């Protein structure tokens, strides 16, 4: 799958998984921080995103510390998926 397509797919998955019903994929800029000021996700969301990566892409992230490096923005997530996906 092309990177651009994967980004779009991931944005849609994030929206559905985290039940962000008041936004659409285009609202999530590739480099918009997921946590803090950007999309405003919190610690429970980070755990949920780890589950998303596992269920959709077969990726295992062992703990939150490892997760923080991956879950910065869509760019870092897609980069990680492309390198580590098993599905």
């Amino acid at each position, binding site marked *: 799958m092309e990177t651009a397509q994967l980004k779009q797919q991931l944005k849609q998955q994030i929206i559905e998984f985290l039940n962000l019903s008041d936004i659409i994929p285009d609202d999530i800029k590739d480099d918009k921080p997921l946590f803090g000021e950007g999309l405003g996700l919190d*610690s*429970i969301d980070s*755990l949920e995103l780890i589950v998303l990566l596992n269920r959709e892409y077969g990726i295992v992230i062992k703990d939150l510390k490892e997760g923080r490096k991956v879950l910065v923005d869509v760019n870092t997530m897609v980069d990680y998926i492309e390198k580590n996906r098993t599905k």
Partner: protein
Amino acid sequence: MGVISAVGNSLAENRSALRAGQGGITLSRHLPTRYAGILPFGEVPIVTDDLKDKLSVTDPGITRTTLLALHAFREAIADARLTESVLSDPATALVGATTVGGMCLTDELYRDMSGPCEGSAFLSSYDCASVHMYLQDRYKMQGLATTINTACSSSANAIQFGTRLVRNGRARRAIVGGTDSLAKFTINGFNALQILSTGHCRPFDRDRSGLNLGEGAAFLVLEGEEALAEAAGGEAGKKIYAELTGYCNTNDAFHPSALSAEGDGPYLAMKGALLSAGLNATQIDFINTHGTATENNDEAESRAIVRLFREPPPFISTKSYTGHTLGASGAIEAVYSTLSLEYQEIYASLNFEQPIPGIGLQPVQAYGVCPLRHVMSNSFGFGGNCTSLIISKVN
């Protein structure tokens, strides 16, 4: 009082383990979970069927949670020498707490949910109220009864609510306490939050990595002065362990499953308990902390202690013995705090090596005898529900 936990089936057995520094955290022997051989738990080492036999319970649809509650309840009412007529007295209240209730029956619940619902015997037992409605029925209790669920502070709230019922003249005595049993439901919930430790929990240690779930129950019989005066006039030897002198319930209001970094809720709860007891911080001789060994709780609780106490008193976490018994923890730890007062002793906090950097608090690490007048017991839960109790020696 009455108690059952991973370290004993009675007050005497629990005290014995605490004095000996002998924790009850092990790999599970009985839990039907894939984590049985992986994660350590504070499991009560009696299978449910054996508990039923021991307690002569033949009713269908009685959950493990209810059985643990019954076990501790029986010990408490015998210890307090409560007769059948006292139990049935409309002036005797029952205030219980649990977070799991009948949700320990994960598989039965799933079958009832998904099959063509013929209805197992457990249909009316899945909620939290079922535990205390069973006790009400079994002991023909006619007074006010209720069930509290404020996550990990549930039974601490049962204690303060029961105390206030008596103080406000709405009951002459209140049997208060809490219970929780190990359940796939909570094991998986806490695991999903990544706060379970794969090793024995290490409260307040720099390298702590989460909590161990536990199970158990404890009940305390609270009696007002009027009830005590009556008892004193009647049969001799009614034991008074201690007095509930202070309590405070606050909300941290920071996050659904984490405390604020500075421990605002814990600080306000402890401060409020002191105010309600008419004590200042220097008068607290010992704290039985909430001390779950999660990164978040122990740091927040430590910061709150340092904020409130210029010189923090000795403290331990008994969760290193029993695991985190959730809805039972407030009551079990109130019982332990009362034992400390009764015998003027402090138990060792287990598995501690290095303090949390930047805070430096160290729990008591060896059993010791020392004069204790006022003990504080903390319980902080999900949803920011924080409750602090102060238990004092009676003159």
